């Protein structure tokens, strides 16, 4: 039994992979809520998503924990490098999903591999990255030209393992320039920093208790623990589905620096250690 599965048993709620959550909220026909959320993603139904979009924050509020994601304040959203975070929309098979990512070069975005690939459907298609999305506006919206992940990553619908999470990082290459005149987020590959009490800021477009149209933020100072290699976790942090691939920022020399990406609920993150270097080296 993997350490990760043991760890999940300690949690009061059933812990599942963000992608599975994302599938639950995005696949049609499961329940009224899932159907409506699916409709929201497709923009086919106009009225119901609006009703649920308004109601969701209030419905979820009662269950919120101390470190659960909240809307990122306006002054933070527009500051660099938080404004390098964006939303990803993509198709896997016939269904559309949402996730998050961070621009780290003028045409390169770091995200979670499970946003880009699963073995049954292969790589995702029609991937769109909207940097700095805020409601129905964004700073840059672009198609992509290439997507890359580490080998061995395998997201099968019923399979979540610490091994898969340890490989759960990918990059996309965008068609349009992402941050003209601005500096993309800096990356620093040292997973040990996550194990300190330094404040970590997690960001992404949560579409579970929130609408998925605004940037959410969680901050936590408790150290993360290693579950397998670069896969670390912190049970104080419970990201929402849709935050997958979003950044974990740490302040290094006064600059918020991308250190890991969010990969699973239960505070699972994939540190950008040396094994992610081949992916980062391919970006321009």
């Amino acid at each position, binding site marked *: 039994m993997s350490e990760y599965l043991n760890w999940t048993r300690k949690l009061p709620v059933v812990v599942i992979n963000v992608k599975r959550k994302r599938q639950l909220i995005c696949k049609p026909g499961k329940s009224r809520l899932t159907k409506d959320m699916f409709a929201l993603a497709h923009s086919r139904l106009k009225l119901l998503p609006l009703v649920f979009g308004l109601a969701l924050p209030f419905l979820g509020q009662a269950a919120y924990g101390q470190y659960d994601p909240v809307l990122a304040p306006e002054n933070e959203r527009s500051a660099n490098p938080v404004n390098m975070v964006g939303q990803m929309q993509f198709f896997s098979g016939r269904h559309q999903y949402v996730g998050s990512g961070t621009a780290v070069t003028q045409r390169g975005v770091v995200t979670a591999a499970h946003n880009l690939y699963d073995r049954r459907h292969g790589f995702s*298609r*029609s991937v769109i990255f909207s940097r700095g999305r805020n409601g129905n506006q964004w700073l840059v919206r672009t198609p992509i*030209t290439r997507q*890359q992940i580490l080998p061995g990553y395998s997201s099968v619908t019923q399979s979540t393992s610490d091994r898969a999470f340890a490989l759960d990082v990918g990059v996309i290459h965008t068609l349009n320039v992402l941050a003209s005149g601005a500096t993309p987020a800096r990356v620093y590959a040292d997973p040990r920093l996550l194990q300190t009490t330094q404040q970590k800021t997690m960001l992404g477009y949560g579409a579970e208790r929130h609408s998925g149209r605004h940037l959410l933020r969680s901050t936590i100072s408790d150290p993360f623990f290693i579950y397998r290699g670069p896969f670390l976790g912190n049970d104080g942090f419970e990201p929402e589905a849709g935050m997958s691939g979003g950044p974990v920022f740490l302040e290094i020399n006064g600059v918020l620096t991308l250190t890991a990406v969010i990969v699973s609920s239960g505070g699972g993150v994939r540190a950008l250690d040396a094994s992610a270097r081949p992916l980062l080296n391919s970006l321009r």
Partner: protein
Amino acid sequence: MKAGRLLLAVILLALVATGIWLGMNPRKPSSAVPAASSPTPSPTPALAPSAPEAPPLETKLLEELLETFVTTTHDDAERARAMLENIRREIRSLPPEHASQIIQNFLASGKDATTGLQFVPGENDTLIEAPTLRIFLLDLLEKIDPEAAARLANAILNAPANADEWAIALRTRQNTQPATLPQNLTSLQRALQNPEWIAKPSQGLLHALDLAAMAGDFSTVMRLAELAEPPENETWAEGLAVTMHRMARESPAATLRELNANPDFLAEQPLARADLIAYANLANPEERRLVEERLANPQISLDEKQKILHMLVAPGEFVHEGLFTEAPGMVMAQDEEARFSVLIATMTDWLELFPELRPSIREVAEYLTLE
């Protein structure tokens, strides 16, 4: 007096000439270390008289480092890494022949230690991580003494006992004797028939599949597909996916030809199969023809054809240093521009050629002109 000066000048001239000759012909280091410094009898010839003195202190230090590594329990990956780096540094500081002999002696002793690390190929045919000390040393030996490494590789491949050692030996033989490719592919095929190895595939064995990708060997891929068959073996299914992608990147035309000739291959995962077609270079007439052949095939579903069109725009790939192939480099702007220029022209032609795909081609066009 005059004769004495002349003699002195001749002697000086001879000394200068000798110095110049020696400078132009530095003595090569010895091909072996003295038997006294070897823990086991050396099969190599004794030192040539012109060989430099063996550095006994450094030799002893390296032997001690190896011994310490063997007697230490490696439950801390960082510490194991640091110790291996020390060994590497020490080996590099020795004349290659001395270092080679010490490594060969250690390997002949049968001693070993697990490192707690994985089997991870890196750049320049060097493992970033090795699961055992022996594999670490076999990897290093190929760099400092290719001839000795080739001899050892042949011996290991003739009587393979450990899949990871077999994998590194396979790489060494392929690197040092490229003409042995057919034998190496046979060795790979045999490994994929070994019941113990396929029941619990090691990382080395999985990385060795890269040889099939490099060589475009579809028979190995067919065997992999058998191993990955239901009840699905996740490890072999991953191995198949990674090998197919790398093969499609290394030899797109050959892979396309095989896929077109075997329409049932990977038929249970048509959308994943569509990803492989995206490695085709549409500027290459033969590869374009093969893609068109696939798009025209009524046995291929419309869903799969649509996915092919989308993946030609934004192909997906696995990025890693292979045991036999290199990781993709930086994606260059001019290459992408050229690719898109060809892609748009081709899709324009396909609007006429494939009327049933018109909606999908328009969808791709809309995607590319996204505001």
